[in-house]
């Protein structure tokens, strides 16, 4: 190895088995996607709570600044 920083990097073993970790992985993915949806998209193109605009107006500046399309 031509690695100058001492010990040779060991291959990181697979530490998370996907079937065994499915509950946490799916749960965290859902949490992330739901938050992403409500901050970025809800009450614009689609709306979970009908024509209410509270979420949209509250996070309005963040929505613009994070790059999402807005009215």
């Amino acid at each position: 190895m031509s690695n100058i920083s001492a010990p040779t990097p060991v291959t990181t073993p697979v530490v998370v088995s996907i079937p065994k970790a499915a509950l946490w992985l799916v749960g965290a993915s859902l949490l992330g996607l739901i938050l992403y949806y409500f901050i970025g998209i809800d009450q614009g193109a689609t709306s979970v709570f009908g024509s209410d605009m509270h979420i949209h107006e509250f996070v309005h500046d963040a929505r613009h600044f994070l790059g999402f399309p807005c009215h």
Partner: protein
Amino acid sequence: MAAEGVTEKRLILRGVFAGAVAGLLAFAFARVFAEPQIQQAINYESARDSAQAVLDKAAGIATPAAGPDIFSRTIQADVGIGVGMVLFGVAMGALFAVAYAICLGRTGRLRPRSLALLVAAGGFLGFYLVPFLKYPANPPSIGHEGTIRARSGLYVLMVVCSLVFLLGAVWLGRRLSARLGNWNAALLAGAAFVLAIGVVMLILPPLGHLGYNRATFGAFATETPQPLRNAQGTIVFPGFPADVLFSFRLYSVGAQLILWSAIGLIFAPMADRLLTPARAVRSDGALVRA
């Protein structure tokens, strides 16, 4: 090393924590740098609406009533953007940790810390920068009400394509590396990503070309407000200020760069402590690397 079955939980909780702190940092940046630009954009919009109302009145057209303000500007600019940025950080931190847990041990000889930075770079590219290249962030007053459905759909499509192609490029790089070596495999996978996303960008329409925009405003590439003209065709109100638009977009990139760098840099040492096995604590408390 952590016991089997606990690692994913620890990784995800650390990802969420890193995301929340990163969101807080991005909020501080946004409050200082973005809010003045957002306020200028809103001032432009109000002044333009007033000018439009005068023109409409002269032409005998009724001015449509403005929508109600549910939250004051103070709430939006101080609290709303903070909550939005922190929760966005939490969301990205959670998804980052999931990607990290899956990549761990499946993407070659990478130390836990290096992998954290690479996954964060992937999140920055896939969730933000690549979609931004096609559909950049816009301040208030840019974006027509009538196209919000189409614009949201196009933006989400760009995000999904960027993320899927990035994952595809990682997979391709792994497959090629056995035959071509890491360097050439990575270059080829990168080129394949650029090519694939480039084709999508060419196919998707510029926002100004959407049917509603063509019919209402004419042939423009974007939805950026053009100057207002009176009945004689004289410009009576300027188009959207270019400097405000540039600063807003620059700071938007800056905030995402801060957010993703912070996620990677905060998560990296925590993952390292969690995953590096050859580490023990001596009786005097000092860390020893075997």
